């Protein structure tokens, strides 16, 4: 996984990004429902509307608008949000850390859970733990994360009020972070009370987000572990005197992770898309939540900026997954 490989991958991502940008740009401008008219008070004249439209550059032909917008984007200017009257880049960057923290916690939870569940299922093959894991993953895969989020809210937030169901942190808590990376800051500044509160809030949305990924990972990992345990090198480990548990953890797991990453790699980027609904459900102040607001408000610049951001996150996630594969599989590294 050399630097040139990474650069090459990023390079090939550019046409995809351009394609995404064009599609979204055109799509959003075909909108019925005029955002400009929505912004003005009812007594506005056609003249007012025209001037406001010109101010936002929405009166030029689409192609010209695109060129202008692209130029601005390359300079880092994503325009101004029509509904929130702030710079799009500021809005996005302000909320991005929250989503990143949510995603990272979800991915970590998913990986950890999947490994524990898959190993339990293999260690206790033919007994009830395996059955529980199989049925559980089947259910988790069949029911989409949106419904799981609702279930969590209902069961763990309302009926058994163990967890908060909205927001990122208790507003009454005396925690004034300098950045938007609340979790990181709380850790670094050793504010354990804030950390606890943050984690308490993030549990339900992260779990709901992670569940489909966990189920997929567990299934594939279990199959791969069973395959690995039939290999010659596992036989040799047993002959050397390894216990079954040790063989699973130390020998089979590492090998089983390789085909697992290959087969489920794409699911990690689905997680990024999942943040939209989950954040909305839990009123979690990230870019997913912002996206829904932007769409309902027909806020074109904000929508465009957000979609580009999501596309970039997608591509980066896939890149990280590839690099993980390289880290796991030594045979690939020489390339």
């Amino acid at each position: 996984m050399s630097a040139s490989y990474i650069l090459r991958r990023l390079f090939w991502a550019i046409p995809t990004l351009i394609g995404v940008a064009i599609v979204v740009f055109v799509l959003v401008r075909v909108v019925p429902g005029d955002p400009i008219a929505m912004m003005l008070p009812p007594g506005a004249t056609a003249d007012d509307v025209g001037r406001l439209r010109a101010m936002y550059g929405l009166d030029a032909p689409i192609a010209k608008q695109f060129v202008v917008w692209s130029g601005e984007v390359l300079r880092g200017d994503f325009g101004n949000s029509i509904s929130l009257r702030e710079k799009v880049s500021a809005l996005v960057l302000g909320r991005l850390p929250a989503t990143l923290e949510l995603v990272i916690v979800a991915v970590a939870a998913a990986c950890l859970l999947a490994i524990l569940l898959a190993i339990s299922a293999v260690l206790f093959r033919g007994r009830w733990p395996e059955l529980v894991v199989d049925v559980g993953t089947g259910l988790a895969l069949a029911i989409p994360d949106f419904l799981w989020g609702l279930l969590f809210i209902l069961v763990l937030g309302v009926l058994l009020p163990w967890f908060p169901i909205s927001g990122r942190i208790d507003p009454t808590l005396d925690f004034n972070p300098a950045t938007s990376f609340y979790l990181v800051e709380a850790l670094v500044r050793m504010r354990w009370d804030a950390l606890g509160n943050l984690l308490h809030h993030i549990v339900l949305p992260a779990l709901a987000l992670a569940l489909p990924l966990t189920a997929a990972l567990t299934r594939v990992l279990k199959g791969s572990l069973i395959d690995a345990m039939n290999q010659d090198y596992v036989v040799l480990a047993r002959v050397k005197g390894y216990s079954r548990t040790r063989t699973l953890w130390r020998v089979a797991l590492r090998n089983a992770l390789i085909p697992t990453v290959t087969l489920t790699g794409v699911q990690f980027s689905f997680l990024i898309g999942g943040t939209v609904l989950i954040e909305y459900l839990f009123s979690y102040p990230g870019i997913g939540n912002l996206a829904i607001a932007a769409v309902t408000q027909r806020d074109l610049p904000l929508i465009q900026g957000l979609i580009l951001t999501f596309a970039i996150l997608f591509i980066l996630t896939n890149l990280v997954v590839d690099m993980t594969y390289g880290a796991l599989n030594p045979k690939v590294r020489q390339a």
Partner: protein
Amino acid sequence: MSSLLDIRDLDLTLDGRIRLLRRVCLQVRAGSIVGLVGESGAGKSMVGRTVLGIAPANARVTHGAIVFDGRDITRLPEDERRHILGREIAFIPQNPMTALNPVARIAPQVTDVLRMHLGLDRAAAKARALKLLTDVHLREPERVLRAYPHELSGGQRQRVLIAIAFACRPKLIIADEPTTALDVTVQKQILRLIRQLQGSCGTAILFITHDLGVVAKLCDHVAVMHGGRVLESAPAAQLFGWPAHEYTRALFAATPRFDRPAELLKAVPAALTQRLAEEAGALDLAVRGHGG
């Protein structure tokens, strides 16, 4: 002098119905090399695997005992058995390309037995591993320790596996066709290596193979198997000079001879194979009659 390994009337049954091993009797004296020969499917590998405890999961020992160093290891609990394995009984597998863990470097795969069974610390284990690799005549042992299995050739990997087998100076090594997967030239070197290490360590070896030539050169004692049964068992010189069983004679006759290349190849006569199968069947019936 009692045997180090004494397999007594061993029966191995698959799924409760199919007999893989039929009243197998075999002895290995300490420090000797015993060859176990036979065609593919004769059950020789299965004998080795049963001793090591790696027979297929649905195969059970339904009769007899495997007595190693005075203890019947078929009756031992799992964890006690594990302590013996790797330390006192080791294994040289057949396929060097798949027997090593592909995602780990060579070093931990050699030092793990040293640390597990001999209690060596990291530095001592590494030093010992280096010496082991030198003993198996691997050039640049430092580089090999740091390498991954896929960076080594088949012959190199087999030497590593041999080093692992001899690492804890076991009393018995079960070698399951260790040269079958290698080139002929490499085969010779590996055989010489095994004999050399065996001599210096005093380890007993159960050498499983279908190659009669190897057995002739290497083994003190030979057992011939067919259909899960041991048909003949004798010191090497005696077996090759005066083979007692008809099947053994047929086997020798079937072996192509370097000095008579123009001869047509002879197979083991079908009638003989048929009769042996019938004998095996009768044995199964008798066993089942006794509720075996």
